């Protein structure tokens, strides 16, 4: 059985939904960030699979995946800086306890 486009898309959907469940459920802010990175990787797999199966000579999906990696790296840097700043003030990174600005 040859590997078709559907295999890659279903694998990417599974990874995305696992990351979605983790981002919605976990308490630790760093684990929420790790689950967001998981979702971004799943989307990257989808992009590259589409590019490789439907328009193999254009490579547009791989260019898009490179830019998604750039944005993910920038987001991780800023997100972890925010988490470190919160930890310095509160000594707690439980996402349910960071609620000072809640009405």
């Amino acid at each position: 059985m040859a590997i078709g486009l559907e295999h890659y898309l279903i694998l990417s959907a599974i990874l995305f939904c696992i990351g979605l469940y983790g981002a919605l459920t976990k308490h630790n802010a760093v684990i929420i960030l790790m689950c967001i990175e998981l979702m971004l990787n799943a989307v990257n797999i989808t992009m590259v699979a589409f590019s490789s199966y439907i328009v193999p000579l254009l490579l547009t999906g791989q260019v898009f995946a490179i830019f998604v990696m750039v944005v993910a790296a920038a987001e991780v840097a800023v997100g972890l800086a925010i988490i470190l700043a919160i930890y310095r003030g509160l000594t707690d990174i439980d996402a349910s306890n960071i609620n000072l600005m809640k009405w």
Partner: protein
Amino acid sequence: MGLVIAFWIIAVVAVISALGVVFLRNVFRAALSLILCFITVAGLYITLSADFLAAVQILVYVGAISVLIILAIMMTREVQQGSPANKMKVPAFLVAVILLGIMIYTVTKTSWQVASESPLTPTTAPLALKLFSESGFILPVEMAAVLLLAAILGAIVIAREK
């Protein structure tokens, strides 16, 4: 045949390590499981003939982002290890399962027009032409540089000691 075996091994390890990220209790072991997931995603890129992207994935995700995440875990040690009950577990699980069902249904019902050409290998020179040529993606490349500069400055300002 080798590609089929490689894909199934990589896919199973990717799903298991993704489940490990979400369900492992120790935060550091979840980060190590995430590194394993990134490496399997790089393997998936190789099965898709995206060799440059696989190398960049290892360099950027495993080499830089994972190190940043482990640094943040080391600096934000939680004092108590118990995890209180989360009242979002059942709705989040339902949402994830329903979304997965919708996506799998859509993917299997659509008739994809798969091209008959095989992908370009190696991809470094065509990617360079596509990114840096005049009719390519040169403007997003320059904007990505500005974005990274802004992100670095922002992270330094937010995380420094007063």
